[in-house]
């Protein structure tokens, strides 16, 4: 029997192989900040100068994100959060289903937030699937802005909007753009954090990208 006729290995096996080889990008390194509406043009200009994907003009996106929670049946752990993103400007693209774990800020020496993350492209009836799975919609928003790439780094500059019930134009939740710098990488590639810090420094003082613990912020206010 030729090699082509060998039995295909099961998906479970190939997945555990990939896990063992540590090639699955399941960690997100993240820095966040914001820029005032008045200064966003300057920031975009600077990003156009620094980033890779600018030859064919600036890449834009217009997404809607719904955040679901799935409560732990034993009531022991915090609810599991799942996010679904859908491109409003490219409707035939698949949904993006995201699992995001607890952010780990580490100590001062760690340059970025690290959190486990699974980014899954999905098609089909995802929203209904999640509803039936036992997930509940927690909140949703739309997010519109610009996406830049620099090597493995992704930089988004985006405006976050409340979803409005009527056909009125959506209401932005702040007078600033959210700026996020992130990299998805397999576990243990912490060196990328330094690269991100270096890149973030190039955007100073226009934007201050930092490790932000939204959990603590949420409790404070």
């Amino acid at each position, binding site marked *: 029997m030729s090699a082509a006729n060998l039995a295909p290995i099961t998906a479970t096996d190939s997945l555990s192989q990939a896990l063992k080889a540590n090639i699955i990008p399941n960690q997100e390194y993240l820095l966040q900040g914001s820029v005032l509406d008045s200064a966003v043009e300057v920031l975009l200009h600077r990003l156009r100068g620094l980033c890779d994907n600018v030859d064919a003009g600036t890449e834009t996106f217009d997404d809607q994100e*719904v955040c679901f929670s799935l409560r732990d049946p034993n009531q022991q752990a915090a609810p599991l959060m799942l996010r679904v993103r859908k491109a409003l400007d490219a409707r035939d693209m698949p949904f993006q289903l995201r699992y995001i774990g607890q952010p780990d800020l580490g100590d001062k020496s760690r340059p970025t937030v690290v959190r486990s993350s699974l980014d899954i492209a999905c098609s089909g009836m995802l929203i209904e699937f999640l509803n039936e799975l036992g997930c*509940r919609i927690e909140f949703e928003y739309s997010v519109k802005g610009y996406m830049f790439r620099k090597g493995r780094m992704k930089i988004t500059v985006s405006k976050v909007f409340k979803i409005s019930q009527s056909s009125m134009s959506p209401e932005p939740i702040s007078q600033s753009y959210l700026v996020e710098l992130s990299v998805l990488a397999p576990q243990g590639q912490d060196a990328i954090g330094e690269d991100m810090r270096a890149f973030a420094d190039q955007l100073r003082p226009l934007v201050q990208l930092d490790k932000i613990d939204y959990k603590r912020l949420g409790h404070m206010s």
Partner: protein
Amino acid sequence: MQREEKQLEATLHAILNRVNDLKTAIQALISKLENEYETINWPTFLDNYAILSGHLTGLSKILQSEVAPSLRSVVVLPLQLGCERDEALARLTEGRVPACTHDLVPDLLRTKPEPQAEQRLQQFNHKASTLSHDTAQKQVAQFTKVISHVWEIISKGREDWEGESMRSAGMQPTHSIADTHALVTAVGTGKGLRPGMPSMGPSGVGAPGLGPSRGPAPQLGPAAAAMPKAPSAIKTNIKAANQIHPYQR
């Protein structure tokens, strides 16, 4: 007398150390040039020269200092010159000088510059001394002008580079910490995005009457739409839901 001898010995020792340092530095430089010339990082290579010049300065300091006056009164007298190989000398010099020949001695014992170099130095001195004061002044002024022009260009460039930072330091800010926090918590926990609810509220979304801006029910619109053979009444609902909800294909 004994004190002087001791002093001389200490001085010689210090000089020897310096010379050895210098020698190892030069060796490192040469081996780098010979072995790593393909991968060499030239800016760091230049640092080697800084090390060399450091050692040279140290050496000349010792020679100039008052500790070493007696050295000036010491004479080196070559007793024997010859073309035959002197093993002891070769060993002392690590094989560099196999014999004390006529060829080498003038270089090794030289206390003045080479005649050629001396001649050129004299030429320059002569040229400088014949130059009229006015011409010299003119040339200096011209040079200063060029330098200051370059300086101006550089500092203007720097100002442009740092302009934004200076402006932001002195003038309006380009970002606000409060906005950052608001945006990050909104995206992270939904704060401000859930109508009329505290963050992480347990069951509010499905409850009716909450949230004047939008009811939660239409989110489930696609659920109805996904059933393959839905009655027509539902289909009209879908259309309505479709306009506000983008998750329907």
